[in-house]
C-alpha cells in the first residue's frame, strides 16, 4: 500500500512513530495528486509551496513530540469557498478569479493550529450551486470510479480528491446535500454537522441559514478526528452554538446495542433505483444484526422540502451574492455609469445556474410576493423541523439512502435544472431542519459505482451518528474499496 492510500488515523501513527516525515509524506501525496489530476481535476488551485512550508513546520512539531494532533503533518484538501489567507479563493466563479482573501476561515485556522497541511483548493459548483460540480467556471471534476461520471456536488472536488487519494481528507460545505451527495457518489464518508456546530466564519455564503462546513474522509474514524478539530463555538460566528464538543473518537466506539433506528417511509418512493433500495435495506438489516432496533417512522412534510428549499436558499443567495458588484474586488467590467458597470460585471461574472438562483430569490423576496413565497417557505421549514423533533422522540437516528441514484454522466442533467435539483431530494430536509447527517459507503452498483447510506441524528448528537456509522462500517468493507480511475 502506498503512503497516500492510507487513512488519517493510519498515517498519523506513522508520522508520530517517525516512520515517515510530513515533508516526505506531502511530497509523495503531491506527486500522486499531480499524476492523477489531469484525469480527475479535483483542484482549482494546487498549493504545493504552502503545503511544503506547512509540512516543514509540522515536522518540527513532530520532532519535538509535543502539541501533536492526529492531523499534524497530514495533507488535506480545502473546498474553494473557504477563505485562505493570501491563497486564491474563487468559489469556482469567474467573479472571484484571482481573489486572495486577507484572512483565514475559522476552520482553516483550526486546521492550521492542529498542524494540518493544505494541498489545494478543491473544485465545486459555482458558489456551491449545483449537484455535479459541472457549474464550475474552471473545470469539470471527474468521478474517480468512472471518469465519464460526475463526482456529485457541490463539494465535488473535495469528494474526488479523497476518493482518488489526492488528499487524506478534505473540508466541504453542505447547504442542501453538497457534502453527503458527492460523498455518496464518490464512495467516501461525508458529514454535515448540526447547524451551528462548526463556525461558518470565512465560508463564502450561499444560503447562510443552511450552510454548514463538514469533513469528507476515507472512513468514519477520520471523520471523527476532523470533527474534533473543527467543531465548537466561535465568537466570530453568532450562529455557532456554545455547546460542548465531545471527543468524537470516543463517542464513535460506544456500543449500538439497543440503538433505535427510524426508517422514514417517505424516503423509499416507488420507482427509485432498485440497486440503491437494495443496498439501503441490506445496510438496515446489518445495523439490526449489530443490535439496534428498527422502527418505521414518518416525516410527513418531507415532500415539501425541495420546494421550500428552492425559495429559502435562493432568497438568501440573492442577498449574499449582491456584494459582487465590481466595486471593491473580483471581476469588474467597466460601464458608462455605475448601473451599467454593475450589470455588465454581474452578467459576465456569474454562470447560468447562479443567475437562475439570484433571479428566483430576488423574485421570492419582492414586495407583493414575500408572503406567498418566503414567508410560506419559512412556515414549511417549521413543519419540517417539527417532523424531525417528533421523530427523535421515538428514535435515536434515522437511516435513509443518501441519493436516489448512483453517479450520472456529464451533461445528463444539465439541460433540465429540476432533474438536477432532485439529486438532493433525500438530503435537503436535513439542512432545513438544521440536524446533522452523514453519508457513508454501503455498496456498489453493478457498474461499480458507489452507493451511499445516510444516517441522520439529533441536533448536536453527532456522537451517536458516528457511533452508528462506525459500527456499520466496521462490519463491512465498502470503505476499503478503491476506485480505478477507469474511463466508463
Amino acid at each position, binding site marked *: 500500500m502506498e503512503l497516500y492510500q492510507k487513512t488519517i488515523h493510519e498515517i498519523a501513527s506513522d508520522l508520530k512513530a517517525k516512520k515517515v516525515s510530513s515533508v516526505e509524506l506531502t511530497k509523495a501525496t503531491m506527486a500522486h495528486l499531480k499524476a492523477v489530476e489531469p484525469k480527475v481535476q479535483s483542484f482549482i488551485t494546487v498549493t504545493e509551496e504552502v503545503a511544503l512550508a506547512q509540512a516543514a513546520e509540522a515536522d518540527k512539531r513532530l520532532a519535538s513530540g509535543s502539541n501533536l494532533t492526529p492531523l499534524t503533518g497530514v495533507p488535506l484538501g480545502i473546498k474553494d*469557498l*473557504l*477563505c485562505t489567507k493570501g491563497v486564491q*479563493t474563487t*468559489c469556482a466563479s469567474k467573479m*472571484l478569479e484571482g*481573489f486572495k*482573501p*486577507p*484572512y483565514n*476561515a475559522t476552520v482553516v485556522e483550526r486546521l492550521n493550529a492542529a498542524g494540518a497541511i493544505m494541498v489545494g483548493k478543491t473544485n465545486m459548483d459555482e458558489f456551491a450551486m449545483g449537484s455535479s460540480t459541472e457549474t464550475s467556471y474552471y473545470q469539470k471534476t471527474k468521478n474517480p470510479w468512472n471518469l465519464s461520471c460526475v463526482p456529485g456536488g457541490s463539494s465535488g472536488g473535495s469528494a474526488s480528491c479523497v476518493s482518488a487519494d489526492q488528499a487524506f481528507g478534505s473540508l466541504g460545505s453542505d447547504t442542501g446535500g453538497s457534502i453527503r451527495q458527492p460523498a455518496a457518489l464518490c464512495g467516501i464518508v461525508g458529514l454535515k454537522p448540526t447547524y451551528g456546530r462548526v463556525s*461558518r*466564519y*470565512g*465560508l*463564502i*455564503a450561499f*444560503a*447562510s*441559514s443552511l450552510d454548514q462546513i463538514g469533513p469528507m474522509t476515507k472512513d468514519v474514524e477520520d471523520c471523527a478526528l476532523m470533527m474534533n478539530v473543527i467543531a465548537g463555538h466561535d*465568537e*466570530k*460566528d*453568532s*450562529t455557532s452554538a456554545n455547546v460542548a464538543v465531545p471527543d468524537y473518537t470516543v463517542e464513535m466506539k460506544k456500543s449500538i446495542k439497543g440503538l433505535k433506528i427510524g426508517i422514514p417511509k417517505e424516503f423509499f418512493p416507488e420507482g427509485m433505483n432498485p440497486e440503491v433500495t437494495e443496498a439501503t435495506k441490506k445496510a438496515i438489516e446489518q445495523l439490526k444484526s449489530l443490535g439496534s432496533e428498527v422502527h418505521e417512522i414518518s416525516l410527513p412534510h418531507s415532500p415539501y422540502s425541495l420546494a421550500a428549499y428552492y425559495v429559502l436558499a435562493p*432568497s*438568501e443567495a*440573492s*442577498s449574499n451574492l*449582491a*456584494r459582487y*458588484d465590481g*466595486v*471593491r*474586488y473580483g471581476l469588474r467590467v467597466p460601464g458608462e455609469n*455605475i*448601473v451599467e458597470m*454593475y450589470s455588465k460585471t454581474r452578467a459576465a461574472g456569474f454562470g447560468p445556474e447562479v443567475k437562475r438562483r439570484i433571479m428566483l430569490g*430576488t423574485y421570492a*423576496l*419582492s*414586495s407583493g410576493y*414575500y408572503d406567498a413565497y*418566503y414567508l410560506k417557505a419559512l412556515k414549511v421549514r417549521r413543519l419540517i423541523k417539527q417532523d424531525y423533533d417528533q421523530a427523535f422522540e421515538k428514535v435515536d437516528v434515522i437511516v435513509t439512502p443518501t441519493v436516489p441514484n448512483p453517479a450520472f454522466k456529464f451533461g445528463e442533467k444539465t439541460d433540465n435544472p429540476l432533474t438536477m435539483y432532485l439529486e438532493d431530494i433525500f438530503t435537503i430536509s436535513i439542512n432545513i431542519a438544521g440536524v446533522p447527517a452523514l453519508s457513508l459507503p454501503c455498496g456498489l452498483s453493478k457498474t461499480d459505482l458507489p452507493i451511499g447510506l445516510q444516517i441522520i441524528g439529533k441536533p448536536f448528537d453527532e456522537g451517536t451518528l458516528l457511533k452508528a456509522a462506525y459500527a456499520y462500517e466496521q462490519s463491512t468493507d465498502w470503505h476499503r474499496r478503491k476506485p480505478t480511475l477507469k474511463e466508463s
Partner: protein
Amino acid sequence: MPFEDYEPVIGLEVHCELKTATKLFCGCPTTFGNEANTQVCPVCLGLPGTLPVMNGKAVEFAVKIGHSLNCTIASYSKMDRKNYYYPDLPKAYQVSQYDKPLNYGGYLDIVTKEGTKRIGVTRAHLEEDAGKLVHAGGKSGRLDSSDYSLADYNRGGIPLVEIVSEPDIRSSDEAHAYLTALKSILLYIDVSDCNMEEGSLRCDANVSIRKKGTEKFGTRTEIKNMNSFKFVKQAIEYEIKRQAGVLDKGERVIQESRLWDVTENKTKSMRSKEEAHDYRYFPEPDLVPIILDPAYVQKLKVELPELPGAKRARFETDFGLTPYDAGVLTSEQELGKWFEVGAKLTKNPKGFANWVMGDMAAQMKEQEKELKDLKFDQKKLAELVDIIDAGTINSKQAKEVFLELFNEGVSPAEVVKSKGMAQVSDPKAIEAVVGKVLDENPNVVVDYMGGKQGVIGFLVGKVMQASQGKANPKMVNEIIKKKLDS
C-alpha cells in the same frame, strides 16, 4: 386657496450615530476624521465569508434611547437585511430592523410658543451606517458631473439608531422644537455626540399639506439627509410653500425624495436612482434575534439620568420659573446642573436664572466661553443677586459688577466695596440731599404743586447726581414725594 388655509403634516426621521468605541458588527474604531479606509476590516468591508457580531454596547445605547423616548422595549427583536446596490454599501445590503424594531410606540413632549405638545415616536431601531463617497473631478463635486468616485468605508458599520416620529408635527417651528428636544435627550443620556457637522445626527423630513380641518393626508415628499436644524426648518418652510403653489395651480404633488440645496435655498427633486426601491427586506440569517432580559431592560431604565422634560417641570415648581425659562435652562444638561447649584444658594432663584440666561449667556457667547471656562462659581453669582436684592447697588452698577465677576472672577461684594458702590439707603442722609435740591429748584417745586407730577423724575435725577449715583433711587423717589405732598 389662501396659504393660511393649508395645514402642514410633518414626520421626521432622525439618524443618530451612537458613540460606541467600536462599530456595530466588528472591532473597528468609530473615530471621525481619520484618513480614508484606515478604520476598516474584512467584516465592515463585507468581504466574502465574513460575519457580523452584534455590539452589546450599541444595543444598550439603543435601549436607553427607547426608554428616554417613552417607548416599549421589545423583548424579542431581530435584524433584517435591506437590500439595495450602492457603492458605499459594501455588502449591497444594510443590516437594519424591519418589522420587529427594538423600540416602538413612544413619544416626546416639545415646548413651543403655543405651549407643550406631545409628538408620537413610531419606532427607534438599530442599524449600521454606510460608507461615504467622494465624487471626484467634474465641476460641482456632485455625482452627476463627477469623473469618478472614491469610497471611504471608515463610517461603514458605525451603529445608528433611526428615530421615526409620527406625522404629528404641524409647523417648521414644531419640527425645530422636536429636533432640539431630541438632541438634548440624546446628549443627556450620553449615547451620541450629536455632532451635526460630522454627520452624527442627520434628519429626513416627510412633508405634506392638506386643507385645514380635513383628515386625509396629502401626498408627501421626503427631504433627505439634512445635517442642520436650520436647514430642516428652512426646507420644511420652502416645501410647504412649494406644495401649496403646486396645489393652487390645480396640479398634484408627486411623491418623491427631494434634496435641500443650501446654496439656492430650495428643495430639488432627486435623481432617478432613488426611485421607488423594493428593498426586499428579510431576516438577517447571520445574526441571532435580540432577546432582552426584562431585568436588564429595567436596569437601564433605572440608570437613566433625569431627562430634560422632567428637569424642566421640576425647575418650574422648585424655582418658580416660567416654562420657557425652565426650557432654556434644561436644554443642556451641564447648564441645568450649573444653574441648579446656584439657584439653591440664593433666595431669588428667578433672579439668578435671569442672570444666567441674560448677561452670563451673552458674555459667554460673545467671548466664546463654555461653562468649564468660567472664572467664577455659582456662589459668587448668587452673591451678586443677593446684593442687588438687598438694594445695595442699582441695576446699572450691577452690570458693571457682573463684568468684573465674569472677566476677572472678583467677588461682587469686593467690587462693590473697592469701587465704593454701596447705595446710600440711610433716610436721613437722603433727606438732607433732597432738601438741598428742593431749595435749589423752587420753580420745579411750584410746577409740581401746580399738577405737573412728571417733573418728579427731574428732581430724582438731580438727587442722584448730587449723591454721585449712590442714593437708593426708590427711596429718593419716596422721600421727594413725601416732602412735596406734606
